[in-house]
């Protein structure tokens, strides 16, 4: 792997920057692999990286139906935090946040992690009670969290309107200072480069069309680039988990919905934190280019169209303008949609499926980006050992039969 450093930059500068190599090889599929990961987003690439790094499994292929970084990895609003309510969620999201904190160094790739603080606003008495409870739960789990009264919120984010006369006034906010944003496609590129350097084949433009099983075990995978045999198959295809699981005859408790986001024209630095509101429903941060990055809600209906209805954006902009009247003259440059698969308890499904050798990491709903390193880490452990990582165990598919759901509707950023 070509390492990046100041010295490398200086050497390349002298050679006219003609010596930089591609981040990963354009691999062609081999007929057989020990592990095939379906989905070349951040989660799939992280899984491949940790399989190679922590478990010595290098005979791995990552199949991506499009190009790396163009799926949900490049469509989210890049927010990272770990302030979830229940112990099970707090542990896995905090595990992920701690991995984020060392990841740029570990991957030798600048992920532009910016721990600028995440505010979650409360607008009603019920919001306040839920938020204070969540801060207390976070602190009991060793996760940083603070409750801010409205004047403290205003000091932390001066452009926020805390006027008590609006329809949903700001009654306070939780603040996680270690939360923030990272550059989302850099995460995919960084993991792809590091996994490739450890021998993982990253195969783009390779869509899975069938997963064959025999005697309750996975076998051949049919793809648009030929048949591949795999000892273990790991589904890591956010939005399309149900479609892939159904190829192996497995039913999941997931429904796929469009989730929309949009960015404004670039402006001077005006917002130096992340602001989220579940109640009026908007979340916003400012990118290093100066664009405001805003997330909207999900469309209620099932869809795989990667676009949503316009009234969702209308409602979200109305909420944004009540919170930030200063944005009223901004033009929006573009909007897009990604497909998220949502579970009934707003928690992911990580673990073994009823078919031997078949694994799933999916159902992250509207908040999978922040979990990229942690999910990849525990999923790789689950695949390598054919047994769930302790942090992943509560998120097994069996919880829907046992009834031990992990209800995170309050902490998930988007109401389902």
């Amino acid at each position, binding site marked *: 792997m070509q390492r990046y450093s100041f010295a490398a930059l200086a050497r390349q500068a002298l050679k006219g920057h003609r010596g930089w190599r591609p981040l990963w090889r354009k691999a062609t599929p081999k007929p057989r692999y020990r592990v095939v990961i379906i989905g070349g987003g951040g989660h799939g690439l992280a899984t491949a990286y940790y399989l190679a790094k922590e478990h010595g499994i290098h005979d791995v292929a990552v199949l991506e139906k499009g190009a790396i970084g163009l799926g949900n990895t490049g469509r989210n609003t890049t927010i990272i935090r770990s302030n979830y309510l229940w112990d099970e969620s707090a542990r896995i999201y905090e595990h992920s946040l701690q991995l984020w904190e060392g990841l740029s160094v570990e991957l030798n790739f600048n992920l532009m992690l910016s721990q600028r603080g995440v505010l979650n606003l409360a607008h009603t008495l019920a919001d306040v009670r839920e938020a204070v409870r969540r801060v207390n739960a976070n602190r009991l789990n060793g996760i940083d969290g603070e409750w801010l009264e409205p004047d403290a919120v205003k000091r932390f984010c001066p452009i926020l309107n805390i006027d008590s006369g609006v329809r949903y006034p700001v009654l306070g906010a939780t603040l996680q200072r270690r939360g923030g944003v990272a550059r989302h496609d850099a995460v995919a590129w960084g993991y792809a480069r590091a996994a490739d350097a450890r021998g993982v084949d990253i195969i783009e433009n390779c869509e899975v069309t069938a997963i064959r099983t025999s005697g309750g075990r996975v076998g051949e995978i049919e793809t648009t680039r030929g048949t591949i045999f795999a000892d273990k198959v790991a589904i890591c295809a956010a939005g*399309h988990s*149900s*479609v892939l*699981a*159904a190829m192996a005859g497995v*039913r*999941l*408790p*997931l*429904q*796929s919905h469009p989730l929309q986001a949009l960015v404004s024209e670039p402006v001077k630095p005006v917002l130096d934190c992340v602001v989220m509101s579940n109640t009026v429903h908007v979340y916003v941060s400012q990118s290093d280019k100066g664009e405001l990055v805003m997330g909207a809600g999900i469309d*209620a*209906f*099932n*869809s*795989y*169209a990667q*676009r949503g*209805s*316009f*009234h969702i954006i209308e409602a979200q902009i109305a909420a944004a303008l009540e919170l930030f009247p200063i944005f009223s003259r901004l033009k929006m440059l573009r909007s897009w949609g990604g497909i998220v*698969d949502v579970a*009934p308890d707003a928690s992911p499904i990580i673990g073994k499926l009823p078919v031997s050798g078949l694994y799933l990491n999916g159902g992250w709903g509207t908040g999978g980006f922040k979990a990229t390193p942690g999910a990849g880490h525990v999923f790789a452990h689950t695949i390598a050992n054919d047994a769930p990582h302790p942090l992943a165990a509560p998120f097994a598919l069996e919880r*829907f*039969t*046992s009834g031990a759901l992990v209800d995170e509707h309050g902490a998930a950023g988007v109401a389902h």
Partner: protein
Amino acid sequence: MSTALPAWHIKMLLIPCPWCGERDEVEFRYGGEAHISRADAATVDDATWADYLYMRNNPKGLFAERWVHQLGCRRWFNVLRDTVSHRIIAVYKIGEPPPPGSLPAGSHGGDP
């Protein structure tokens, strides 16, 4: 699969309520997958109960689903819709099966 307007022009669903006619999506609420029969909690095992309660078809393609005309006649009905093109293939009343011929051969509107 041709529509009168190009895909980028469609901003919202137009849903034909069987009683009120075609209305904007904002008048309706979504009810999820149609044709799920209630399991008998007193007699079935945990797996069957979980399947009824949580497991859902989630097809990329034709999907039979329920809508209610919340801001109109407030009545429930079934819709057969394509989850990729958003095209509505058929609208029919609660308790009725999808109209014959509305589904391609070999499909029953629920296979993911």
